[in-house]
């Protein structure tokens, strides 16, 4: 995995939850940064150094989904996991449409969280690989239907297949 895949931003205004999640993520080998507000999270996440963001939905200065909304546009390779103790069907559907890689409902068990975060990190790595393959094809100056682009499409498909096969999780 690339370094960014092991860099995680944890966003939660509940100090106890945040501290526990930070400790747990560190035990998983993540390089962890944490904060408690949307504004602070935006500041950290916009640097682009994080592969994974775990964000609570209800934060003192706004809805955590705003982080997902903005980062899915500016940093589409970032894997964003939403979490909340007060889930609603509307919020889950909105998260799905914005590209959240998962949605965790509190209280959660740590085994579940481990699986979710490892899968999120893996997805970030695959996204970077696909982007790099595309960049190489574009650098080679091939046309949209050229052999290199076709090869990239094939590799993207292979990456998608590998991603599923290696997730090893059935919910």
């Amino acid at each position, binding site marked *: 995995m690339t370094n960014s895949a092991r860099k995680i931003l944890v966003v939660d205004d509940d100090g106890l939850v945040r501290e526990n999640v930070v400790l747990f993520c560190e035990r998983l080998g993540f390089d962890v940064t944490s904060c408690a507000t949307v504004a602070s999270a935006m500041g950290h996440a916009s640097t682009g150094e994080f592969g994974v963001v775990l964000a609570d939905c209800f934060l003192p200065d706004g809805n955590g989904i705003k982080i997902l909304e903005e980062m*899915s546009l500016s940093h589409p390779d970032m894997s964003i996991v939403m979490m909340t103790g007060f*889930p*609603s*069907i509307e919020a*889950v*559907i909105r*998260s*799905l*449409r*914005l*590209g*959240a*890689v*998962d*949605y965790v*409902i509190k209280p959660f068990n740590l085994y579940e969280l481990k699986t979710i975060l490892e899968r999120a990190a893996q997805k970030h790595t695959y996204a970077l690989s696909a982007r790099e393959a595309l960049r190489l094809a574009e650098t080679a100056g091939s046309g949209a239907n050229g052999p290199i682009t076709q090869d990239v499409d094939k590799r*993207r*498909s292979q990456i*998608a*297949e590998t*991603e*599923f*096969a290696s997730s090893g*999780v*059935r*919910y």
Partner: protein
Amino acid sequence: MPSLLVVDDELLIRDLLYDFFTGQGWTIAVAENSDKAISIMENKPIDMVLTDIKMPGMDGLELAAWVREHYPTTPVVIVTGYPSVESAVSAIRSKVTDYITKPFNINQLYKTLEANMPGRKETGKQK
């Protein structure tokens, strides 16, 4: 011509969607359960799957997971009359493209499917 597989155990829904999307020039296949849907996918090219959740046998979320495993680039859109947080979270984890609740506005549904149809210049999000 886009090809859509509609999976729903309600005949009225299947007929409604078949008539509407055929009228838009799409190629439509219909299945009343997941087993039949899998059989269709194994025998003809399908660009996108639109599936109900609650059906006899394998449900729509299990079908979505099967499609993700065997046809990872084929988008799956869930449509359900019984939305729940649990099934919507499962939908995220199965990497479905969208989760739509019944009753739906068919023109809105058309726009959603068209926007996410593979090969379009501006497709929806890639998960």
